[in-house]
């Protein structure tokens, strides 16, 4: 097929202070073709799509549509060039009706008054074309996620776009709803629409996409015809061929006593999670984005609600039932959102380090003992080699690596026996990454059980004694610490058929 691309994005670059979001990214989509856009978190997919949507102005690069160069300065420009987005269902106006949501970006009017009849009729027509018979005067908040998705698609299609971008459309859909969505995508392809399909689920793109473009660190690293690639190759392209680095921790020779036992945990997307952790071991929670790995970690300590399941924790030499909130009082947690959930940016490094230990620093009068607090801060700053001008330096002014050390240090001060680390090295440079990983290994050596999430298998391979593999909210496999990179990759790119009896 040598047909010229309908949409062509060439050499697009975009830098923000301190971060390069796009590095000469290229993307081509032909008429009647669906191109999957894949990449790990922060790979640049969103920025690239924001450029296409007229939301972000690129620093360099060009876009041509149907052979003629275009400039997309505003969202209106994008609309005028026939570009439409199907967002995740979040972009809805929940208390308004289906028809109003479909026409939210421009109500049909008669003499300046919204023409309800026309709006309802046109909305119904659009929905029928999507094979969906929703009453148009229902409030969107009463619909399930699948129907909401249909309303979102109807909204995108009402101006008969020539280019449609689907942004993770299936993340909250049931199987049947997904089938219906795939049929719509096929229908659009038959009508000659160019489709960009963003997803984290590798298996989906083999069903409905014709080609796949993979992004990594702001670059489009490869484009493959679907027929000529494999799930494993795509995952490998997404994650790159980083050199694995030396192993930082010996595999725990003899794991200690059982510390935590989780059984039948359900909640959100999590289904029937069973596993256990032993003292002194580092367990890698391995899965792609959207697999439920973050949700599992949050559910364990009550940051996300759980519907069912039991947690048992070792106290006084026997396993006893605990609630997630109680586990939170025991566990140290580093969430993936360091600035949003980890640190109090305007406060001093010292105040951030002492926050979880204040009650152990009190004078008899109930005041915080400044000397003890300073001692705690100085000790952690020294032990973790945190680079600060002093413990009074505002934590928001530290580098990413030092900020992360502050988050970890805060928990070190509480001497937790359970550590939950979600992407602890995200956004850090190579040196800082190694330091955080070494710290993790030291924690386990001191007898803590560590559960760690990373998007980079080579990082996990440097420290983990064991892996739990997650996919679509379930634990699908357990692997030993000796698992190779290839084994890890194929464990998450394979369709989840193997269910381990963990």
């Amino acid at each position: 097929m040598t047909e010229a691309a309908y949409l062509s994005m060439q050499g697009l670059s975009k830098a923000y202070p301190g971060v390069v979001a796009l590095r000469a990214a290229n993307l081509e989509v032909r008429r009647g073709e669906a191109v999957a856009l894949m990449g790990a978190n922060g790979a640049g997919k969103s920025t690239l799509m924001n450029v296409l949507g007229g939301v972000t102005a690129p620093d360099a690069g060009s876009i041509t549509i149907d052979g003629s160069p275009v400039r997309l300065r505003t969202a209106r420009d994008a609309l005028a060039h026939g570009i439409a987005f199907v967002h995740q269902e979040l972009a809805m106006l929940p208390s308004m009706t289906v028809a109003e949501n479909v026409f939210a970006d421009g109500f049909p009017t008669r003499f300046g008054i919204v023409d309800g009849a026309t709006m309802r009729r046109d909305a119904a027509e659009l929905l029928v074309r999507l094979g969906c018979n929703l009453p148009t005067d229902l409030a969107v908040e009463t619909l399930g996620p699948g129907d909401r998705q249909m309303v979102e698609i109807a909204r995108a299609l009402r101006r008969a776009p020539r280019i449609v971008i689907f942004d993770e459309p299936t993340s909250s859909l049931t199987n049947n709803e997904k089938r219906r969505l795939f049929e719509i995508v096929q229908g659009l392809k038959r009508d000659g629409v160019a489709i960009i399909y963003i997803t984290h689920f590798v298996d989906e793109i083999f069903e409905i996409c014709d080609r796949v473009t993979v992004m990594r660190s702001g670059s489009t690293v490869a484009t493959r015809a679907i027929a000529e690639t494999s799930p494993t190759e795509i995952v490998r392209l997404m994650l790159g061929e980083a050199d694995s680095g030396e192993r930082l921790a010996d595999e725990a020779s003899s794991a200690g006593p059982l510390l935590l036992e989780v059984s039948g945990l359900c909640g959100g997307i999590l289904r029937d999670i069973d596993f256990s952790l032993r003292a002194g071991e580092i367990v890698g929670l391995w899965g792609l984005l959207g697999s439920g790995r973050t949700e599992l970690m949050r559910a364990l300590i009550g940051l996300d609600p759980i519907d069912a399941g039991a947690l048992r924790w070792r106290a006084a030499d026997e396993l006893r039932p605990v609630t997630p909130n109680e586990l939170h009082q025991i566990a140290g947690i580093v969430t993936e959102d360091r600035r949003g959930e980890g640190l109090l940016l305007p406060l001093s490094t010292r105040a951030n380090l002492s926050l979880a230990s204040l009650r152990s620093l009190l004078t008899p009068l109930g005041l915080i003992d400044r000397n003890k607090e300073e001692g705690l801060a100085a000790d952690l700053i020294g032990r973790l080699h945190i680079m600060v001008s002093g413990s009074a330096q505002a934590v928001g002014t530290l580098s990413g690596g030092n900020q992360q050390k502050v988050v970890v240090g805060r928990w070190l001060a509480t001497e937790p026996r359970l550590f939950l680390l979600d992407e602890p090295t995200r956004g850090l440079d190579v040196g800082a990454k190694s330091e955080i990983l070494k710290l993790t290994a030291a924690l386990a050596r001191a007898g803590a059980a560590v559960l760690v999430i990373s998007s980079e298998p080579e990082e996990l391979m440097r420290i983990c004694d064991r892996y739990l593999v997650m996919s679509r909210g379930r634990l699908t496999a357990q692997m030993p610490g000796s698992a190779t990179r290839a084994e890890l990759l194929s464990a998450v790119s394979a369709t989840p058929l193997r269910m381990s009896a963990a």
Partner: protein
Amino acid sequence: MGASVGQAESRRAGRWSGVDAKLGVTAALLLVILVVLLVLAPSFFRPNNLVNVLVQTSSLGLMAVGMAPVMIAGGIDLSSPANMALGAVLGAMFMQAGGNPVVGCLIMVVAATLVGLLNGVAVALLGMIPFVVTLATMTVATGAAVWLTHSVSVSGFPDSFYDVLLARLGGIPVSVYVLIAAVIILGAAMNGTPFGRYLYAIGINPRAARVARVPVRAATCASYAVSGLMAGLTAVLLSARLGSASANMGNDGVVLDVVSACVVGGVSIYGGSGYVTGAALGALVITLLSNNLNLLGVSYYLNLMTKGVVIIGFVALDGLRRRAS
């Protein structure tokens, strides 16, 4: 190593560096007002008038230092003056009927604290919006006070009530000492106890606070109770000063004054920063702007406009600071 070199110097630099500049602006404004008064209305500085200003400041100041912890934790308590009036009316009715003045004072303080706690439960445990909850509480408290008193002010307290509360030590009335004590105690609580630290943390980032095991609900709830407690103390002192209690004591204008005192005193309306001391200084500024510009022959209406402009200026400053950080 850099870490150790900086530590001694940072200890001197103050614990919450950068925030101190806020107090500077408030102090500077205060100085400007005083200089203007000195030049244009030297009679302001008569000892009697100064004492009078401090007494006026003490009621607004007490409510403002109670509001400060709430605002620092990212909330707001619009019910504080109405709450104060309801507490005052309840205690006053008890004393009018011949009740013991000590118990009467306790009724005022406990009633107001309970209303504050109610706000806290609604906000912290039920997840309701502070602005709406406390606005509603304000209406309920005012309604209850009017209903109880039939809009008539309650007076006729025992002499011992006045004797103690209107006493002067070294020429300064008791109410001023109460404000000073409140500033010292609450100031220490905010800067030196886990409770205070938790409120700052919640105001800066409630999600991060939660992850860091901060008892977000309990601390938030307690902040509203503190505001209620301060409203109760204000009720006691103001009833004594006015010689009566009425539903009108906490009229709507007072709410604006309390919030303004905090904002002018550098307590951020976005939460997460500010000082109790600042709120008290802010109360002094607002009192001067409200009651003493007339010494300059300024009309009441121009006075209102001046006050409004100053408040808007500080809100703008607050917004600018927030954007800068």
